[in-house]
């Protein structure tokens, strides 16, 4: 059974296959009255969200529905999850309910791997829609799709990922995918927000954003979560903003063609100045739009392929 658990599982060919499919789907659906393809008719996709995330959940739901899958949403507040049912029992329930694909968002790193472990035997695909601080592979794919639209082939493109690398699943997936696609990735963050052992990621780590701005094709800003701001990782939101926020002055130093991405939700003023967020060179709304097509492509690649021989 096929799963998408980590961006690191994708070869360059597989990743480009998904991105090309996504582009094609986007063109196919452009301007159509009926945004509905029969591709996944009769397949059941269950989104299982143990964390709040309107953006990602809706994106997956629309993706599934546009491909005619039956999409069922399970959220932690609305199901027995909140009654303390174990993840494994929930998984077995979803299997018994006839799911073909489970899309899971969970606060525990590795939760998608565990689900895949329990569901593989039942022939159910698992898509990791964000697990703790581990990965968020479809976010990385939609970021890559957005960057490709603006920059073309990503080979050799200079991309900086800025902010809370330590706690970010978006950063982990992006580093893996962008490296696979041949981009020249660098991390820029305060030393307290970079994990020990980052050397194994084989990307340079810097602490000075200003020194890199003029040399970049894209800047990918990460969320700084509220709980981190009080966790002593940096002295104050003000100091973070002064050192790592993308203000207008820094934005002006970027090359004309450089793209700014943010996985949202944004902290305007701290991570990114409002004027920057609303600039046409900022691709944040494109990211959201591409999210649907990329997720359609992922579902297509996972569910439309060859069935296992019985």
């Amino acid at each position, binding site marked *: 059974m096929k799963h998408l658990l980590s961006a690191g599982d994708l070869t360059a060919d597989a990743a480009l296959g998904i991105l090309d499919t996504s582009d094609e789907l986007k063109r196919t659906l452009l301007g159509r009255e009926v945004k509905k393809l029969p591709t996944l008719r009769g397949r059941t996709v269950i989104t299982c969200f143990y964390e709040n995330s309107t953006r990602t959940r809706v994106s997956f739901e629309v993706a599934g529905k546009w491909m005619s899958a039956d999409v069922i949403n399970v959220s932690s507040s609305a199901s027995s999850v909140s009654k303390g049912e174990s993840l494994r029992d929930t998984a077995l329930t979803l299997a018994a309910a006839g799911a073909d694909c489970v899309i899971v968002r969970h606060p525990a*790193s*590795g939760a998608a791997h565990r689900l895949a*472990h329990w569901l593989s035997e039942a022939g159910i695909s698992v898509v990791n829609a964000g697990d*703790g601080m581990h990965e968020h592979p479809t976010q990385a794919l939609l970021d890559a799709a957005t960057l490709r639209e603006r920059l073309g082939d990503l080979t050799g493109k200079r991309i900086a990922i800025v902010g809370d690398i330590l706690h970010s699943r978006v950063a982990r997936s992006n580093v893996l995918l962008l490296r696979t696609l041949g981009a020249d990735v660098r991390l820029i963050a305060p030393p307290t927000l970079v994990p*020990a*052992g980052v050397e194994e990621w084989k990307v340079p780590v810097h602490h000075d954003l200003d020194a890199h701005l003029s040399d970049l094709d894209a800047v990918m800003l990460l969320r700084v979560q509220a709980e981190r701001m009080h966790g002593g990782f940096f002295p104050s939101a003000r100091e973070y903003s002064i050192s790592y926020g993308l203000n207008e002055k820094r934005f002006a130093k970027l090359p004309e063609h450089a793209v700014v991405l943010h996985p949202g939700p944004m902290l305007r003023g701290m991570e990114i100045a409002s004027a920057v967020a609303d600039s046409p060179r900022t691709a944040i709304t494109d990211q959201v739009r591409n999210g649907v097509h990329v997720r359609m492509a992922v579902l297509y690649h996972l569910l439309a392929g060859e069935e296992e021989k019985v």
Partner: protein
Amino acid sequence: MTLIRNVRPYGEGAPVDVRIEDGRIAEIGHSLTVPEGAEIIEGNGDVLLPGFVDLHTHLREPGREDTETIATGSAAAALGGYTAVFAMANTDPVADNAVIVEHVWRRGQEAGLVDVHPVGAVTVGLQGEKLAELGGMAGSAAGVRVFSDDGLCVHDPLIMRRALEYTKALGAVVAQHAEEPRLTVGAQAHEGAMAAKLGLTGWPAPAEESIIARDCLLAQHVGGRLHICHVSTAGSADVLRWAKNRTPDLAAKAGEAIISAEVCPHHLLLTDDRLADYDPVNKVNPPLRTESDAHALRRALADGTIDCVATDHAPHAVQDKDCEWSAARPGMLGLQTALSIVVETMVRPGLLDWRGVARVMSERPAQIAGLADHGRPLAAGKPANLVLVDADAEWTVRGAEFASIAANTPYEGMRLPGKVTTTILRGRVTAKDGVATEVKVSA
């Protein structure tokens, strides 16, 4: 009367026979005559060692009898070659008073397969705030001589100092779970490349090493006895080596080492590479570290920097292990695999001979805990607490076949060398050929 035929004490020399009488070794020699009516144990050239002593076992009774009881844990211990085990205090209720420790002691005696010595909690409820009634536990029928808040660190330096001082009067040792809590908030895996990749909060090595350094200094300062539980990092071995060499005069004055340390089999064999699939069977505290840590620990065990092997046998229910990583309880079964892993990591590579195995699995732990009748030389007149080991046998680990109620072994399916064939407690066979002697449980 029992006669063991054809065994090799410490794996050395030609096979001999051992006659046991009244729970003691009566005679060791070549081709001893078989006394009338004697029980014969065929040794088949097995290695004969003093019965193993485990300073670190979780038997879960009282509180979690669904995962292990003193009876099932005793059977697992006997099958693993143990004749004495120390049952950690983090039961429910906590073993922080004479009533609980006496209960554990008595249950162990009833089971009769292994001497179950309860470990008393250092602080009330393992809360780290107020010393438990250490004297009361020491003076109870259980005669507690090892105190530990294991599972939690006695992190307050003043409380630790007082514990090290106070236990001097009791002839007892404080066993420290070295984990600086502020450095390990939410920690899930060894802080390093694997945790970074998996997005698991790191458990940094200095959180262990700093507490070891602090407590070694405190123990030497007050002249109290300190034992470090489950040493897991290369840096910890360095700190221990430094501390032990620092005040040899002081140690000599005390008549025995002030500082001792144990290492767990899993830290000798397994590394955090195993975490890649997030199977919580590999979750343990302290966490699996790196290859270089494991090698440093093997060297430290070989050269005596680390005194002994202890299992940290920690049974857990399926639902506490077959779940997402962060929700899983830390710990793994160890009693029935410890010897094989010592053979694999220490004997086969030539780091320890069988005398060395006797030292790290029996003699040193017995000395540290002050047991007079375990870990004794194989000689006439000594207590017949013995284990026979088929050094050449290999076997495949199957958690479901273990005597423990729980089955959370990280070695499932592995082929391991060295097999305990017979365990003898005071002259009585407690386990033979993979079967523990019938437990006489009083309801």
